[in-house]
């Protein structure tokens, strides 16, 4: 405790609630409020309705939720496999090369998403690698953008893993494949689940690369939210944003429960 006097602490907590309220609480609350607002001409909405939700449910919402979930799942699964593979393979490289390659695997997270989309358009718009106009290019864009995060999470997990278990397994005569499958990967599972959850959440909110490459008919949640608000339909946009937030939070909480159970047992 840094501040001992009661009035001092009260003042500091007041500052905190102001900052927290204005910066974090108000935006979330106002999105929720506007998604339920009937008419909003004054300070507060004059009435409430679930009309915006039924509108988006009849309109683009289901297709958008499906596009986002399918894209997020496939891109995160591929990123998980390739990120875990890369992190494991780097452990058996010599140190200098491992450090260099490690940086290369991180670089996609540093490049602006719009440029990733632009690069895919430039590279894959001609045969034999014609991806432009297909659903696959959206998955590829999401995979590239989240691959660095999965790689980073799994590498961090590997670094924290105690080497004892693997050494014991080896000294008992376990072959590398057996050791990987029965010792290393089970120990890594909490990190793998966390990495999958984070990349899924990032994919659900991805906008920059998606607006560059998405084909008609595969409109993700963020893109349809943008086209709604761009048309001036801000209330429907708010309702669809709430859908996006809810889906993301349910996913994250669900995965957290899985990891929580794993680490306790």
């Amino acid at each position, binding site marked *: *405790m*840094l*501040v001992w006097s009661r009035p001092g*602490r009260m003042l500091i*907590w007041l500052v*905190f609630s102001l*900052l*927290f309220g204005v*910066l*974090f609480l108000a*935006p979330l609350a*106002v*999105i929720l409020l506007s998604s339920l607002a009937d008419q*909003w*001409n*004054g300070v507060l909405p004059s009435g409430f309705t679930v009309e915006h939700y039924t509108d988006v449910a009849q309109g683009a919402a289901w297709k958008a939720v499906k596009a986002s979930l399918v894209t997020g799942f496939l891109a995160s699964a591929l990123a998980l496999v*390739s*990120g875990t*593979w890369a992190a494991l*393979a*780097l452990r058996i*490289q010599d140190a200098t090369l491992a450090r260099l*390659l490690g*940086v*290369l695997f*991180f670089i*996609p997270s*540093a*490049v*602006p998403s*719009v*440029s*990733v989309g*632009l690069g895919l*358009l*430039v*590279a*894959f718009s001609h045969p034999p690698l014609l991806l432009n106009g297909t659903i696959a290019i959206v998955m*590829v864009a999401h*995979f*590239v953008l989240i*691959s660095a995060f999965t790689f980073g999470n799994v590498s961090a997990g590997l670094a924290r893993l105690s080497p004892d278990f693997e050494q014991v397994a080896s000294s008992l005569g376990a072959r590398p494949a057996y050791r990987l499958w029965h010792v290393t990967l089970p120990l890594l599972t909490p990190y793998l689940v966390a990495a999958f959850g*984070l990349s899924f959440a990032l994919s659900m*909110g*991805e*906008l*920059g690369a998606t*607006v*560059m490459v998405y084909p008609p008919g595969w409109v993700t949640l*963020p893109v349809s*939210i*943008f086209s709604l*608000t*761009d048309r001036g339909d*801000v209330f429907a*946009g708010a309702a669809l*944003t709430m859908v*996006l937030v809810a889906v*993301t939070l349910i996913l*994250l909480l669900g995965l957290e429960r899985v990891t929580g159970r794993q680490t306790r047992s």
Partner: protein
Amino acid sequence: MPGRFWIVPPAALLALLFFYPLALIVQQAFTDDSGMANVAEFARVLHARFFLNALINTITISVAATAGCLVVGLVLGLILAFVPFPGSGVIARLIDTFIALPTFLVTLAFTFLYGSAGMLNAGLMEVFSLQAPPVNFLYSTWGVVLAEVTVYSPFVLRPLLAAFSLVDRGQIEAASVLGARPFRIVRQVILPAAVPALIAGGSLCLLLTVNEFGIVLFIGAKGVITLPLLIYSKAIQESAYQVACIIAVINIALSLGLFGLYRFAAGRLGA
């Protein structure tokens, strides 16, 4: 298969899907229509008004937002770590989940809060019976800056709380028993321990704000064009792919420079 070749499949995948497209962007930026190497177009874009404006906007927004994130992150972190209150742990986790939410959410919320027909303006117009909305900062650089401070200060708060958890509580109590005022304890005991986390979080904020797209797109102000938005509008709305590639080369170079800074800072931190 010898062990060191296991790295080839994931590396090849990344090379095909990321580094090859990146190389093509650079190639497009420096070749003319006939396929010859040519820097004339590159030089023309570099001197163009629209590009310089976007570059200045991007840097101004990024620096201002990062400064804001550092201040907000530091204030929130100090209170959460050293003047905790019932429920502060839950609040810290709630702020942390902002990292997982889409950035444009905040912009959309700001239009309801501070937009010309938003709550703040409606309230002020009602109370002071004004004819025009008095608060107009949202559709300017400052609207983008405020939105980015909200979105990115959790990226400062996270390493900061980790650093604060290592600060010896006994040292703080000893200092305060010896009569040191809170400000002095913060300056002489806590801040030195927080500097690496502030540098790492701050350089990450610089990188993320330079690359930010959703916030700027959603505010949609005519005067606030940044490099990523310019790439989007040149490529998608004007189909000027070479110009888009040239701007992308500069944006990527800027981002990679900041990424290097972040890696250096995080390396010093021991992360």
